[in-house]
């Protein structure tokens, strides 16, 4: 069959998939590459007054939710969830909705820029720095960097999403024998993916990201997992939560949350158990031990060292409560225990993850509906390549520090913001002669780079993303450009405002320029050709949502449907035979510093790590505190009274690693010995909406890790000092209505 299919052929084929096209009208019919241009040169299928819809993938986090973008005369107007994508089934989160504010953000890098490190990428008047080199020169820079350095002097640092670019760069590094690209993201660190996988590997003997089937459970014990917020795949898990509550009309699923600070997820729990930070695993062990004891069976190895009384003491959960909860868990038909969030970000995080898995094994729900599975492997994936843990990042930074890396390529991640300050990446950068950033936005890392070669925004890009979590079926989310570029209408002639180029295209072109093995290994005309070469692996596969025998047809369907996924249940049911045999030391967590307060950083649920440059996300209130546009520190009102601080007082929080100042929010649902701070603000670059707003709690963290190598981000003990300053927090809630005596609930 020819490379191009005719319009007639396409229409015939489209008839086959008519059921799926009800909401999807966009796909590239006659040509491989559809040009989308502003309305002065209107393509024939763009009608005035009618919208065109394109299926693509959300790039705001690495969950890989499918989107359908509504476009109108060449502009993207709105995104909705793709109802067919198994990850999100037509739903989106707030971040996904705001992705258009990234696309049309006033502070995108305007074009390839050579710049001196540290210089801002937009002026005081918020005007973006002009591009000062051509793309040809940019490609030459990349080609030189790839060909003139030794392979082991080249490093790639990438974002968390396992996408086509990761595959391409993996191929590239393989071709020249360079070290494999490292992937990292602050969210992955907060999720403790490494710990979760390590725990699964240790107890279930199989590596993979655990899949917690919340939707089919009827009792959920969550140990610190903020699964309704940013953890793994929030949209899918929220759907699961919804099903937990309403699946069975006669019995509403019950939900208990163990955490020191009530998170948005904890707020939805029927019971919120404020336990001492770092004792989550101990409580899980105690519950298991009590369950076994109550049933009269002999204690398995896992519970041999468990002293229930001392755990009750150290965790602050009474023995009665433990017994009641143990009974509840034992008596439930489909109980499920989840670990995550701050519970794993402790020195004993791996023990906690394993203790919780053991609890699941005890009720025999491993690999059963409403229990624990391993996430299905995405199509085209040989294994799940997890993002780097902090220990690996520490090693990577040490490598940069040593000066053995001559050129660093950064894409899709903002490590200077997303890594704790105690991991001295900024210093390490000084020993890297050349840093190339592919950032779309002028983030902190781009500011420290020598070259910025802006990638296109997710909605302008081709691609696919291997879904790692959330979907029950093996899923490859597909992306396609929904707009051809951002234009401003200055006068009659539209002009390109942002001259971005797909990083894959840049690398492919550079590979050709570099010549040698690189050129022959990456003989692709452009990004799409590379993607098609990968997708060829799926041709003829009949267990998918659609199938096609020929690559252009397959690509057309792939674009039209927003990806390819199996229709089967692909969750992996591991063996739990050895899960109860591991003995635990049952040690409480170790804390860093001698402050009197536990410090719990958490990801701001709406904004997360990269939402700060989108004004809508800044203005959408935090679900628990309703604060907008800034950072705050949550302190129990009693503790605040002892410290003599009130709402909006600025306090100095110091740990062994550093100190920050933030305004006080008297938060009633936090332990008096704990304070909490959101992560997401505190940018020193990243556009006018983000820069200079709030503080980054990472400045307070040391590089202490748990046993698996994930950052022990909740292991700091801090002290608080009044500064005497006051800075009013903007909140949606009326303080007098919600907190003062007049406030009686409606």
């Amino acid at each position, binding site marked *: 069959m020819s490379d191009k299919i005719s319009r007639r052929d396409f229409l015939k084929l489209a008839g086959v998939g008519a059921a799926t096209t009800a909401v999807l009208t966009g796909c590239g019919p006659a040509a491989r590459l559809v040009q989308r241009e502003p309305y002065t040169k209107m393509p024939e299928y763009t009608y005035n007054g009618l919208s065109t819809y394109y299926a693509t993938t959300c790039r705001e986090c690495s969950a890989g939710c499918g989107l359908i973008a509504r476009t109108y005369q060449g502009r993207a107007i709105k995104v909705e969830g793709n109802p067919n994508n198994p990850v999100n089934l037509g739903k989106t989160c707030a971040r996904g909705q705001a992705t258009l504010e990234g696309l049309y953000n006033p502070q995108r890098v305007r074009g390839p820029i050579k710049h001196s490190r540290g210089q801002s990428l937009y002026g005081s008047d918020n005007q973006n720095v002009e591009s000062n080199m051509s793309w040809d020169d940019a490609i030459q820079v990349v080609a030189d960097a790839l060909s003139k350095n030794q392979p082991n002097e080249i490093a790639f640092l990438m974002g968390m999403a396992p996408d086509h670019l990761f595959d391409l760069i993996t191929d590239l590094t393989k071709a020249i024998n360079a070290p494999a690209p490292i992937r990292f993201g602050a969210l992955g660190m907060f999720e403790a993916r490494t710990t979760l996988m390590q725990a699964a590997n240790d107890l279930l003997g199989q590596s993979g990201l655990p899949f917690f089937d919340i939707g089919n459970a009827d009792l959920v014990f969550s140990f610190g997992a903020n699964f309704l917020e940013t953890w793994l795949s929030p949209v899918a898990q929220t759907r699961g939560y919804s099903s937990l509550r309403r699946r069975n009309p006669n019995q509403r699923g019950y939900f208990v949350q163990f955490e020191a600070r009530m998170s948005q997820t904890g707020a939805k729990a029927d019971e919120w158990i404020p336990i001492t930070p770092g004792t989550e695993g101990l409580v899980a062990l105690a519950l298991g031990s009590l369950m076994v004891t109550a049933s009269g069976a002999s204690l398995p190895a896992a519970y041999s060292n468990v002293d229930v009384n001392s755990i009750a003491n150290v965790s602050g959960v009474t023995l009665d409560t433990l017994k009641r909860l143990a009974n509840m868990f034992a008596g439930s038909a489909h109980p499920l225990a989840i670990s995550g969030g701050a519970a794993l970000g402790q020195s004993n995080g791996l023990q906690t993850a394993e203790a919780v898995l053991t609890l699941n094994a005890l009720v025999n729900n491993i690999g059963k509906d409403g229990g624990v599975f391993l996430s299905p492997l995405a199509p085209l994936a040989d294994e799940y390549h997890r993002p780097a843990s902090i220990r690996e990042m520490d090693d990577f930074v040490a490598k940069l520090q040593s000066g053995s890396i001559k050129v660093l390529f950064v894409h899709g991640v903002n490590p200077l913001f997303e890594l704790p300050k105690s991991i001295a990446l900024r210093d390490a950068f000084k020993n890297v002669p050349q840093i190339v950033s592919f950032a779309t936005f002028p983030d902190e890392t781009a500011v420290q780079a020598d070259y910025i070669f802006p990638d296109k925004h997710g909605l302008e890009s081709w691609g696919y993303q291997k879904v790692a979590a959330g979907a029950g079926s093996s899923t490859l989310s597909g992306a396609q450009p929904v707009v051809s570029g951002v234009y401003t209408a200055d006068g009659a002639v539209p002009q390109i405002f942002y001259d971005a180029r797909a990083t894959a295209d840049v690398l492919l072109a550079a590979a050709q320029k570099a010549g040698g093995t690189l050129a022959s290994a990456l003989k692709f005309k452009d990004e799409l050709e590379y993607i098609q070469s990968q997708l060829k692996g799926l041709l003829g596969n009949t267990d998918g949502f659609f199938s096609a025998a020929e690559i252009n047809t397959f690509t057309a369907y792939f674009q039209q449907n927003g990806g390819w996924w199996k229709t089967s249940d692909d969750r992996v049911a591991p063996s739990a035979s050895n899960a109860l045999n591991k003995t635990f030391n049952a040690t409480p967590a170790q804390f860093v510093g001698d402050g009197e307060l536990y410090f719990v950083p958490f990801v701001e649920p709406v904004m997360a790590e990269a939402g700060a440059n989108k004004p809508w996300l800044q203005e959408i209130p935090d679900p628990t505190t309703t604060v907008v546009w800034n950072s705050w520190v949550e302190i129990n009102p009693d503790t605040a009274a002892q410290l003599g601080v009130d709402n909006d007082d600025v306090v100095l929080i110091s740990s062994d690693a550093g100190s920050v100042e933030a305004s006080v929010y008297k938060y009633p649902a936090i332990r008096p010995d704990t304070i909490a701070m959101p992560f997401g603000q505190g940018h020193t670059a990243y556009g006018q909406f983000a820069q200079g707003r709030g503080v980054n709690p990472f400045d307070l963290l040391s590089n202490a890790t748990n046993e698996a190598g994930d950052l022990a981000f909740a292991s700091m003990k801090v002290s608080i000092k009044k500064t005497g300053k006051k800075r009013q927090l903007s909140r949606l*809630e*009326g303080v*007098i*209505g*919600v907190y003062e005596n*007049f406030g*009686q609930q409606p």
Partner: protein
Amino acid sequence: MSAIAKALPRLRPEEMEDPKEHLMHDPMPRGDMNTMVLDSMHTATWKYWTVVTILAFIVVTCLGYAWYYLIMQGLGVSGDDRPVYWGVFLVNFVYWIGISHSGTLTSAILRVLKIESRRPFTRVAELMTAFAIVNAGLSVFMHMGRVWLAYWMIPYPNERTIWPDFHSPLMWDFMAITTYLICSSLYLFLPLIPDLAMVRDRSKGWVKTFYKILAIGFRGTEGEWKNLHLAMNIFAFAIIPVAFSVHTIVAWDFAMAIRPGWSSSVFGPYFVSGALLSGVAAVPIVLFLVRSTMKNMKYFLRPEHFDTVGKMLLIISMIWAYFYFNDYIVSWYGGDKWEKILNLFVQTGPQWWLWYLMLFCNIVVPWSILWRKKWRQTPWLMALVGILINVGMYTERYIIVPEMLTINRMPFTWHSYIPRVEIILTIGTFALFLLLYFAASRILPLIPAWEVQEGQEGHILRKIGKARIPTISEID
């Protein structure tokens, strides 16, 4: 004759009131009085022009420029928010409407009741109505989000084919205020005519032409006087219900809303009494200013007039207190959850002191000072009482509008209110009010000379033994 002498208290001569204290019994030849009135209009010192310049400057900047800024920027520069959608502009509106009651309503009531001591100060009071209503209108316009479309409230057949909605209390307000403005302007104008004619007869050149037009050809024939009296009588009676309705409808702006604190059936009379209280309290302030700054005014405006106003104030303050506590006790005893929260908020919330200030100014001050005749007859003290009562009444409106709006049935939205540009614009409206008075004192005779003369002719002192008994001949 001896029976009357016996009936009189036996007072020592020094204890006896000098009837000359009363303007009506201290007659002056008509020509001299006219000259006095004209003199007061024509005498302007450098102090006068300094004050006028300052006021004009304040009006141009605080009112003109600040309003321009407000219109161009939108109401974001004010302090309004959710849930306090109505702020100081509406406070000013209610306040100025209240002030406007002093003039026309007070004057009409006194005229109808034939209170003789009204004669020299009705004009000053009626002018207050006109000027205050200008400010009230301006305040509403400042309040509107899109003031350039304010004419959409006028019911006339138009190309938009949209008619205003007469269900809306704001439309009733619009109609009532327009009616009141027209009626009270006419009511101000009618008694002005003979005085304008007097000025016309005593001036020359273009000034004469000016007053000729204003005096609409009044020559003082018997028929003209008869018609004038008839018209004034009709207006005096007719304007009382109009004035009552105006402030009742202003109260309905609030009372018709389903909000805790506002939705109260007693709001109509309560607002009327409040309007009278602040309006009448403004009279001694203006009287004091006119008396102490303008030439010849000490003859016309005497302690007895302050005394009259003082008595009225005391009674009105009691009426106001009655209505206020009527409203308060009903809402307190009714025990509605929201009313309770609201009362608690007003009395113990962040601005609790406003409530106590209001009670102090509106009740404690008048009740402790106005019972004593000597104090009622002290002009500066009366002016002070007037100012305090106005502060109290302004506070009362502030409590009713932004304070009560803070509390609604959705506690999640309770945000408090801090006025911003409103403060400047409020200063501007007060300056405009004073400036209009200053301008009027040059153009119009502030004392209705003919009414004073008419009164003096009707009053005669008859000697009965040693006593001199004031008697009045029937005028009407």
